[in-house]
C-alpha cells in the first residue's frame, strides 16, 4: 500500500472514531440531563406532598386526645 492510501485509511478510521465518540458523548449528556430532571422532579414531589410521622399507636379503648 502506498503512502497516500494509508493516509486515506487513517483519515477514514479516525472519522469513524470521531463520529462514534460524538454519538457516545451526546447520549451520555442526554441521559445525565434526563436523570437530573427526574431527580429534581422527585425532590419537588417529595417536598410538596403533605407528610406525617407516627409517634405512637393508640391502644384499644384509650380516649382520643383532641386539641
Amino acid at each position, binding site marked *: *500500500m502506498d503512502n497516500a492510501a*494509508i*493516509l486515506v*485509511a*487513517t483519515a477514514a*478510521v*479516525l472519522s469513524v*472514531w*470521531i463520529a462514534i*465518540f460524538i454519538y*457516545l*458523548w451526546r*447520549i*451520555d449528556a442526554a*441521559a*445525565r440531563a*434526563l*436523570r437530573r430532571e*427526574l431527580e429534581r*422532579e422527585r425532590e419537588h414531589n417529595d417536598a410538596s406532598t403533605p407528610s406525617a410521622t407516627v409517634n405512637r399507636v393508640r391502644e384499644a379503648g384509650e380516649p382520643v386526645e383532641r386539641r
Partner: protein
Amino acid sequence: MMQRLAQAAKIGIGVWMAGVIIATFLIVPQYEGLGEAGRIVIVHVPTAWVSVVAFTISAIFSGLYLWRRRERDDHIAVAAAEAGLLFTILATVTGMIFSQVAWGIFWNWDPRQTSIFVLLLIYAALFALRAAIDDVDRRRQLSAVYSLFAFVTMPFLFFVAPRIADSTLHPNCAFIQGSNCDGVVLEVGKVGLIGDQKVQLLGLERQGNLIVAEVKVSTPGLQQEAILYPSLDLVDGGMAARPEFPGSRFQLGLEEYDEATGAVRLNMEAPGTQLLENRRTLYTFLAANLGFTALFFWMLQVRSLVLNVQWAVAQRGRA
C-alpha cells in the same frame, strides 16, 4: 469535582483512541508475510479481551442481582452483556478479515471460529430470552440465572476449546506457546497433521550443508495437494527454504533433523507469530488494550444509565 474528572477521563479516552488509530496505521511497521493486514491484530485481540471482561462483569452483576434484587444490578448486567456481544462480533469480523489474508478464506470452521460462533449464539439467546418474558421481575431473575450459566461456558469456549484442538490454524503461538506450536516429528513415509494440513514426509536429501525434505501437503478435504521442499541448514541449525502451503501464507518449516533416527520436525510458520516482538507494535497493542477497556467501561456506564432512566420514567408513568 468528580463530574469534571469523569468528563476529563472521557475526553482522554477520545484522544487516546485517536492516538492508537494513528499509531496503528502510521507507526506500526508492516509485518513480513502479512503486509498491511498484520495491523488488524491491534484491534482484533483487544476486542476479544474486552468481550471477556464484559461477560465477566455481566455474570458478576447477574449474581449480585440474584442476591440483592436491585434493578440497577440487572441494568449493569444487561449493559455489559450487550457490550460483550458487540465486541465479540467485532473480534469475529476482524478475525475473519485476518483469516482471509492468512488462510485465503473468511470462514473455514476452524475450532477458534466455531467456538466464538457458539459463544455468539449463547449470548444472542440471552437477549431472545429477555425479549420473550413480559413480567419484569421474572425476566430479570431468569436472565440473571441464564447469564451465570452462559458465563460458565465462556472460558471454555474462549480459552480451552481452541487450544485443545490439534487442528487449529489460529496463531496462538503469537501469545502462548501451546501444544500446537511444537509441530510434528516424522520419519520418511510417515503422515502427520500440522494445523488442519495433512503432511507426509516422502524423502530426505543432503545437499551440501542443507538437508532438504520432500513433503506432500494436502489441504483439508484433500482439495489441494502439493509437494513442498523445506530445508534446514545443518551448520547453523536454522531453517533455510520455507515454502508456503497451497492457498495460504502459512509456511512449512523444517526445524530439526535427527541423523540417528532419520526423523525431522516439521512445523507451520504462522503469519502473526512473533508479531509482537516488534517494540512499536507491542506498545501500540498494549495501548489499544487499555483504550478499548476504558471505552468499554464508558459504554457500560452510558448504557446502564440509559436503562436506569428508562426504568425511572416507566415507574413514573405507572405512578
